[in-house]
């Protein structure tokens, strides 16, 4: 016996009870007898026995009822009950089993049978009890494990999901919900494709297929999920496929770690690195990072550019250079400052002139000779341990600055010399007190004894009499705000001297001029040179006009012979009519009128010619360019006809007047038109077209003469205004040069260009007359 079995025997017949008790006690069971059903129930409930032998037929409550009641109670439900009865009916046995009995022994019974059955059932019962205990223990363990798993799953710091082979989320933990931002219930309605960044879906699907095909057990990757709020989250994903016993795929276990922060940090780091690289690449300052022992760690592009190093030279310098032992630096006397920087103190070196040649010699390198003035800043970077980690060295190339400073010093000296040489004096006029202060040079220029007190009126006395009104007018306009910058003559001991005067005024708060400060410059020599040049130009112009005359002889004859033909024919017709005696007064009057008109016309031709060739003083008058163009075309009409040139004009209306010399401007027009006519001699007559156009704006009046000739050779066009630079056969080469100098002497400009459609275009512009004479 493993332990004492406690058996409850229930029988209303005492002898039976005793018999059974003795029998069982003899076998070593502990026996509890009960004579009535109620005693049996109370006893069993008080302490559940190991087994109950229960008589069926008892007064009051029968055995079946007892059995039912005990089976109903929690405490005794599992106690095996063996019915002992004289009943032999099968029905009774069935009832017994239905009531919950485990066996049914019929009286009269064999002692051995009872013992065997009791033994069997107590053993069975013990087994059952053990089993129950084990199951309970196992169940408890399982529950714990399950809870542990659940806790792990739910509380895991990583996202976990079970995903069906099709991609649907079967089970997800809170973390993954947090990562992708969907509530649990919504997650379970989604597939992983739904929340994967479009760019990553394809690669995910490929990997999933590999797992399904058995080519791998798991995979890991970094991917992006689309969160429910539309943002993207970077995650590290680890997927394992779980298969059933037959090897069929059941689900994927996906472990998701949010790596956005890491990604973000990585991006930040890359950005910082990119910025650093950009600074190094694009800084116009040369930057060098030095190690604490003086070697070069890194240099930037500006540094290489500054010294003109290619990659190879840069590498060689980096490999060999050490600032602390550089002889040139030591010779420059900046060693102590540099050592300060290496000791951790930022320093600015004085400007030094540093030579590549010397460096090349010292290090034995092949470097281009380049010497620069540089301004060097050294900034040591100190680490947490107070030690210098590296030194940032920046250069500014100040070579230009140094040179400019030198040049400035020189030019200041030059200026002083120039003022002496250039005869420039300065003056100051106190307008309120009419007190004029001159420098020595002004006294000299005006031929007045130094120190003589001056006023505006006395100044005016020394101005050339013919220029006094002009100077006074300009000065009064100057006080009124007009820029005062004039040229006028002085009369110094009967000698005429030219000066240029320029002044600036100082105004008070009410806008009244109080003080004028000005300069006087002797420009007599320049004026003489200008007059000389003008005389030369006029002489050349006369030669040019004479040349034109030769070319125009035929045309002039033609222009004169036309009115002469009219005159002669009319006169002879009148003569014939008078002789015939058949004439009328009206017709005769008409003839006379035509003769008079033709005679005037001939006179005009001669007058125009005389004007063109008259030697006279060059005087300027207000001119209307359109009128001049018309007159010139009249003069050259027959040239156009002879040369089959079709002329079109495009003249602007309401042309402002220009200040100019009529003959000279006409000469320019004759030159340009004749050039154009001659330029087209080589092309078919039907194609010879000449266009003369005029235009105007607020400042200038412009005239263009365009032809359809071959244009001007590109190599000649730049020198076209040089004398003798003719581009046509038989040309004197002075026409354009003269024209250009005439236009320039009028304050204008002239240009020549080839038209894109072929042919040449010559234009000139003259400044509009400033006065309001033409209004």
């Amino acid at each position, binding site marked *: 016996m493993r332990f004492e079995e406690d058996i409850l025997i229930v029988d209303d017949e005492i002898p039976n009870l005793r018999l059974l008790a003795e029998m069982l006690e003899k076998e070593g069971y502990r026996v509890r007898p009960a004579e009535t059903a109620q005693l049996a129930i109370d006893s069993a409930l008080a302490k559940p026995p190991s087994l109950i032998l229960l008589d069926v037929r008892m007064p009051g409550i029968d055995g079946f009822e007892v059995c039912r009641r005990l089976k109903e109670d929690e405490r005794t439900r599992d106690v095996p009950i063996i019915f002992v009865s004289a009943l032999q009916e099968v029905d009774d046995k069935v009832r017994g089993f239905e009531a919950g009995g485990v066996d049914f022994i019929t009286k009269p019974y064999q002692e051995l049978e009872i013992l065997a059955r009791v033994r069997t059932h107590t053993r069975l019962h013990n087994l059952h009890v053990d089993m129950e205990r084990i199951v309970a223990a196992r169940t408890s363990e399982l529950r714990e494990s399950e809870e542990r798993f659940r806790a792990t799953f739910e509380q895991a710091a990583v996202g976990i999901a079970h995903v069906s082979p099709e991609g649907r989320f079967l089970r997800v933990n809170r973390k993954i919900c947090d990562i992708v931002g969907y509530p649990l219930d919504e997650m379970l309605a989604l597939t992983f494709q739904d929340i994967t960044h479009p760019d990553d879906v394809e690669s995910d699907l490929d990997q999933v297929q590999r797992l399904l095909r058995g080519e791998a057990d798991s995979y890991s990757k970094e991917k992006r999920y689309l969160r429910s709020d539309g943002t993207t989250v970077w995650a590290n994903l680890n997927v394992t496929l779980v298969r059933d016993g037959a090897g069929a795929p059941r689900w994927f276990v996906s472990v998701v770690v949010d790596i956005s922060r890491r990604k973000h940090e990585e991006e930040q780091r890359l950005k910082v690195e990119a910025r650093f690289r950009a600074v190094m690449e694009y800084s116009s300052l040369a930057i060098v990072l030095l190690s604490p022992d003086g070697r070069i760690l890194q240099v930037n592009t500006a540094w290489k550019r500054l010294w003109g190093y290619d990659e190879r030279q840069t590498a060689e310098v980096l490999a060999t250079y050490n600032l602390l032992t550089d002889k040139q630096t030591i010779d420059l006397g900046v060693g102590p400052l540099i050592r300060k920087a290496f000791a951790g103190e930022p320093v600015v070196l004085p400007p030094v002139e540093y030579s590549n040649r010397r460096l090349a010699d010292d290090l034995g390198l092949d470097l281009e000779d380049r010497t620069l003035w540089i301004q060097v800043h050294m900034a040591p970077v100190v680490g947490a341990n107070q030690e210098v980690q590296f030194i940032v060295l920046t250069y500014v190339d100040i070579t230009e600055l140094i040179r400019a400073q030198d040049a400035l010093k020189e030019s200041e000296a030059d200026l002083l010399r120039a003022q002496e040489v250039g005869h420039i004096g300065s003056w100051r006029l106190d307008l309120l007190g009419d007190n004029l202060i001159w420098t020595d040079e002004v006294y000299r220029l005006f031929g007045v004894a130094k120190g003589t007190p001056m006023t505006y009126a006395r100044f005016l006395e020394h101005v050339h009499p013919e220029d006094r009104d002009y100077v006074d007018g300009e000065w009064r306009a100057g006080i009124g705000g007009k820029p005062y910058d004039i040229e006028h003559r002085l009369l110094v001991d009967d000698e005429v001297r030219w000066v240029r005067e320029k002044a600036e005024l100082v105004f008070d708060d009410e806008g009244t001029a109080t003080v004028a400060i000005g300069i006087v410059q002797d420009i007599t020599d320049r004026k003489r040179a200008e007059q000389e040049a003008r005389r030369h130009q006029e002489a050349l112009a006369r030669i040019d006009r004479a040349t034109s005359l030769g070319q125009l002889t035929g045309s002039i004859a*033609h222009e004169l012979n036309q009115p002469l*033909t*009219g005159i002669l*024919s*009319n006169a002879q*017709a009148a*003569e014939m009519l008078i002789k*015939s005696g058949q004439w009328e007064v009206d017709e005769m009057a008409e003839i006379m009128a035509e003769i008079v008109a033709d005679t005037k016309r001939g006179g005009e031709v001669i007058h125009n010619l005389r004007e063109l060739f008259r030697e006279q003083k060059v005087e300027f008058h207000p001119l209307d360019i359109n009128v001049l163009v018309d007159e010139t075309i009249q003069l050259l009409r027959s040239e*156009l006809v002879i040369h*089959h040139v079709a002329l079109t004009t495009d003249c602007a209306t309401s042309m402002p007047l220009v200040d100019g010399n009529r003959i000279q401007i006409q000469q320019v027009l004759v030159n340009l038109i004749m050039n154009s006519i001659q330029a087209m001699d080589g092309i078919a007559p039907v194609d010879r077209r000449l266009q003369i156009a005029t235009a105007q704006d607020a400042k200038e009046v412009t005239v263009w003469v365009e032809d359809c000739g071959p244009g001007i050779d590109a190599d000649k066009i730049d020198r076209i205004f040089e004398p003798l630079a003719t581009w046509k056969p038989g040309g004197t080469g002075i026409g354009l040069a003269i024209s250009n100098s005439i236009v320039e002497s009028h304050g204008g400009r002239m240009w020549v260009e080839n038209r894109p459609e072929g042919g040449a275009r010559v234009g000139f512009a003259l400044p509009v007359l400033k006065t309001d004479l033409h209004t």
Partner: protein
Amino acid sequence: MSDPTVFIIDDDPSARRGLTRLVRAAGLNAESFASAGDFLTSRFRGGPGCIVLDVRMPEMTGPELQDELGKSDYCMPIVFLSAHADVPIAARAMKEGAVDFLTKPVDAADLLSAVHVSLARDAENRAQCKEKTSIQALMEKLTPREHEVMTYVITGMLNKQIAGYLGISDETVKIHRARVMKKLHLVSVAELVRLCEKAGIPPAQ
């Protein structure tokens, strides 16, 4: 046909007016034009009369008009006027059949003399032209075969020879020949030869 007229073509208004008046004072018809183009497009282009033509004009010059008129069937006689003596142009104009080349200002006697010569030449040309036209009208009455036989007759060949050349009988040649003479109202071969000469019909080769 209208009366012979002097056509004055000059772009210069003074010269044009004076010349026109002078020609009219001399009792002749005169029409004036300011350009060669105006004349070419006018109803007077064919004459009768003569042309007084300025040399230098815009667009079409005098010599160019001469060339243009020379391309047509008949060109009126031309008297050139130039305000500027130009020997090569004058020589060329004369070679092309101009009546005269005068320089401006032109004396009335010289101009009118040249104009009269021109008008006479034009009249003569027109008369010749008219005769030729009437002969051609007669000739057109001939059949092609009669015309062919005629060209042989005027070579002086005998009927027999002509028949040999044309591969027809003597008798047939004789009949064609008689019809030719009858249609042209002629009696002798000599007359026929002269007529063909005037009409510009060459003998058979």
